[in-house]
C-alpha cells in the first residue's frame, strides 16, 4: 500500500473503527468527567491530542533504540509512564513560561492527563502495531506510529464533541430518580458507542 494512503487509513481507523473511547475503553474517566460542556470537552481533547503526539514521538524511538537494543523490553511500562509524567510536567512549565494564553486554557487539564490511560495505552499500542517486528525501517514505523497517535487523539476529540452534545440535550430531559447522574450518562454513552458500531468494516487496515 502507498504510504500516504496508509497514513490516511490509520487516521480514519483511529477516528471511526478503532475509536479509543468508544470501542477500546481507553480514557473513559475524562470522557465521563469533563464532557458536560462543549468548551471544556474541546480543551481536554486538545490537551490529549498534544500530549499523545508528544509522548508517542518520544517513547517510540526509546522503545526501538534503547529498550529493544538493550533487551530491556520488560521495563516498558515503568519507563513509559515516567516519560509521560515528566513530559506533562515539562509541557506545563514551558507553556506557563512562554505561552501563558495557551496555558490558561489547557493548563487545568494537563495534570489530569498523566493518569489518562489513553496516553499510556497509545504509547504501548503503537509499539506493538508499528514496532520493529512489523516495520524494519525506523522512518516508516515512526510515521505510522505518529499518525496513529494523531488519529486516536482526533477520535477522542470526535467522541467528546458528540457526547458533549448528547449530554446537553439530556439536561432538559425528565430522567427517573434512580438513573439520575452517572447511570443515565453511561446509558447515553452506550447509545453513542452503538452508533459507532455502524462504522465497523468501513476502514480496513
Amino acid at each position: 500500500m502507498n504510504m500516504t494512503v496508509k497514513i490516511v487509513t490509520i487516521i480514519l481507523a483511529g477516528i471511526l473503527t478503532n475509536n479509543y473511547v468508544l470501542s477500546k475503553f481507553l480514557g473513559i474517566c475524562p470522557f465521563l468527567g469533563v464532557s458536560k460542556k462543549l468548551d471544556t470537552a474541546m480543551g481536554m481533547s486538545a490537551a490529549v491530542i498534544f500530549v499523545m503526539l508528544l509522548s508517542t514521538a518520544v517513547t517510540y524511538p526509546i522503545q526501538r533504540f534503547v529498550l529493544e537494543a538493550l533487551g530491556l523490553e520488560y521495563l516498558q511500562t515503568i519507563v513509559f509512564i515516567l516519560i509521560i509524567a515528566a513530559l506533562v510536567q515539562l509541557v506545563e512549565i514551558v507553556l506557563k513560561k512562554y505561552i501563558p494564553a495557551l496555558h490558561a486554557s489547557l493548563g487545568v487539564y494537563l495534570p489530569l492527563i498523566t493518569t489518562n490511560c489513553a496516553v499510556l495505552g497509545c504509547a504501548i499500542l503503537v509499539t506493538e502495531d508499528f514496532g520493529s517486528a512489523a516495520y524494519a525501517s525506523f522512518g516508516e514505523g515512526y510515521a505510522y506510529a505518529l499518525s496513529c497517535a494523531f488519529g486516536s487523539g482526533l477520535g477522542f476529540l470526535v467522541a467528546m464533541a458528540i457526547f458533549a452534545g448528547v449530554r446537553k440535550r439530556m439536561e432538559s430531559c425528565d430522567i427517573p430518580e434512580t438513573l439520575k447522574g452517572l447511570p443515565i450518562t453511561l446509558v447515553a454513552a452506550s447509545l453513542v458507542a452503538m452508533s459507532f458500531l455502524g462504522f465497523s468494516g468501513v476502514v480496513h487496515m
Partner: protein
Amino acid sequence: MAKKTISMRKDSHEESVAIIEETQAAEQTETAAADTDTAAETAAAKPNDKKPAAGVLGDAMKRGIILENPVLRLVLGTCPTLATTTAASNAIGMGIAATLVLICSNTVISLLRNIIPDKVRIPAYITIIASFVSIVQMLVKAFAPALDESLGIYLPLIVVNCIILGRAEMYASKHAPALSALDGLAMGVGFTTALLCMGTIREILGAGSLFGAKLPILSSQPILFFSLAPGGFFVFGMLIAAANKLSKKNNLPVRNGCGDCPAAATCSLSGKGGCR
C-alpha cells in the same frame, strides 16, 4: 445482633467521614449535614476503639466491598471495568492482578510514607506502582499466558488505574503498613466482586455461557450487544443505578465526591462540586 452490626457500620464510617472533613468540600450543605452525623457517629463508635483482629478485617472487608466499593460507589477504575468484563474469567483475572498490585503498593507506600517528600509523592507513588505492575505482568506472562492474551493492553494499564493511586493517596500515605495491606486486600476484593458481577451478566447475556461453559437455551441465540462496547456501558450504568438504589434504601452515606480522586488537588472541577 442488630445493634452490633449497626455499631460496626458506624465505626467503619469514621474513615469516610474523616476524609470528607479533610477535603473541606465545597458542597457546604452536604458537608454540614455529614458533620453533624460525624459527631454522633464518633461518639457512638468510641467505646469499642480497640477491636480484635477479626473485627478489623471484617470492617475493612465491609468497607471495600459494600460501603466504599471502588467501582460501584466511588466509580474509580472505569476503563478496566468496562474493557475486561466480556467474560467472567477475564474479570476475575483482572481483579486478582489488580488486587496483588494494590496490596503490594499499599504496603510499600505505607512503609515509605515518612520518607517520601510531599512535593514529589505522586511521581514516587507511580514509580512504586509501575514496578509492581511490571512484576505482575511478568508473572501473568509466565504462568497464565492465555490470560495475558485476553487482557492484553489492560494489564500494563493497571498503572494508571485510579483505584491504586487513589488508595495510595487517601489511605496508605496516612496509615500503618499492616492496615494499608488490609485496605489493599479489601479494596481489591471489592474491585474483583464488582468486575465478576459485571462479567457474569455480560457473559451470560452476550455469549450464552458462564466461565466458558455453554448454557442451555441462551447459547442458541446470544445477544451480541452485551459483548460489544455499548453493552459494557449499558450494564455498568444499570449496575451503578442498582447500587445507588440499594444504598439509598439502606441509608448508606453519600459518596466521598472528590475526596477519593487522585486528581482532586489539581482538578479545576473539585471546587465546583466535582465532575459527577
